């Protein structure tokens, strides 16, 4: 109890059919990302994760879970709820990509334009965000993350173990290759 403990947190909420998954279903390595659409560290990790999925196609799949830190990022919650609104329409990843590619345009007006740009009904989605139709889902992801030891964003779990290394492409490739070998 008197020496600092380096705790390796583990994912406690298993991946299920209701998760948003990108990549081969039978990939031996699963990365679960807890992210906040307004977090710039998440924004910086986004292209690296995309490239990782491309370079290790078939080996790794990515699961995305919501972890909005609303007290620091005022648009994080509405962005997450909009992504989930797209998700129930089978368009989660398009919205996810748009959000990370337009992180400085997450205010309601631009968000609505983004939804329209993607060919989804902006009025319907605005209304769902407005009445927090998807807030429970977002909260469920957040709580599962908190219980699993998510300590900021992004937090990645590689085959259930928290990845405490960096988010540069070489770091991610090394983590995936190590997990694939075990």
């Amino acid at each position, binding site marked *: 109890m*008197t020496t600092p403990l380096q*705790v390796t947190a583990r994912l406690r909420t298993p991946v299920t059919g209701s998760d948003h998954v990108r990549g081969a279903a039978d990939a031996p390595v699963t990365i679960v990302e807890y992210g906040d659409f307004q977090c710039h560290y998440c924004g910086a990790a986004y292209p690296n994760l995309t490239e990782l999925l491309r370079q290790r196609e078939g080996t790794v799949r990515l699961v995305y879970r919501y972890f909005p830190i609303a*007290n620091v990022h005022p648009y994080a919650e509405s962005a997450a709820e909009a992504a989930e609104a797209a998700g129930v329409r089978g368009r989660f990843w398009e919205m996810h990509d748009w959000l990370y590619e337009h992180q400085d345009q997450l205010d309601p007006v631009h968000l609505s334009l983004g939804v329209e740009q993607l060919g989804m009904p902006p009025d319907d989605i605005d209304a769902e965000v407005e009445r927090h139709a998807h807030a429970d889902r977002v909260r469920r992801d*957040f709580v599962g993350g*908190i*219980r699993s030891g998510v*300590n*900021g964003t992004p937090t990645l779990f590689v085959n259930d173990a928290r990845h405490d290394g960096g988010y540069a492409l070489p770091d991610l490739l090394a983590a995936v290759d190590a997990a694939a070998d075990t």
Partner: protein
Amino acid sequence: MTDPNGLIGPGRPAPDFALPATPDGRRTGVREYRGRPVVLAFYPADWSPVCGDQMALYQAAMPEFDQYRAAVLGISVDSLWSHRAFAEDQGVGFPLLADFEPKGEVARAYGAYTRSGEAARALVVVDPDGAVAWSQLYPPEVNPGADGILDALERMRASGEVRVG
């Protein structure tokens, strides 16, 4: 507990204190929350990136702490004015206490003071009767997250010490 300077361990009474909590001079301590669990989050300093994330994270997790009626108090040796600016910047609504004068007195009482003159990064969960239920020291650069705290609160609830709010 062979190290006399080690972090306070479970079963020990939590030392009471009265630290400034707001610039108008209001003070608070663990005794004020008797009957509820108290989470004491000692951290090295306002404004270091990892701390910001830790306190911001606890604010975001407040609905979970509320389920156990737990009070959350952040403690560092920074002054109240630093705390106030930091809390505003991070949207932190729970008290950040200034262990400023005499410097680090409360951190020392809990065995959470470092040679560099800052509080260690340490979590202490105090039960509703004022005894330490769980404590853990972390490396200064690691944001400990909230899972250890919630596990401790959950064990308290399972043993009947805390009712769900």
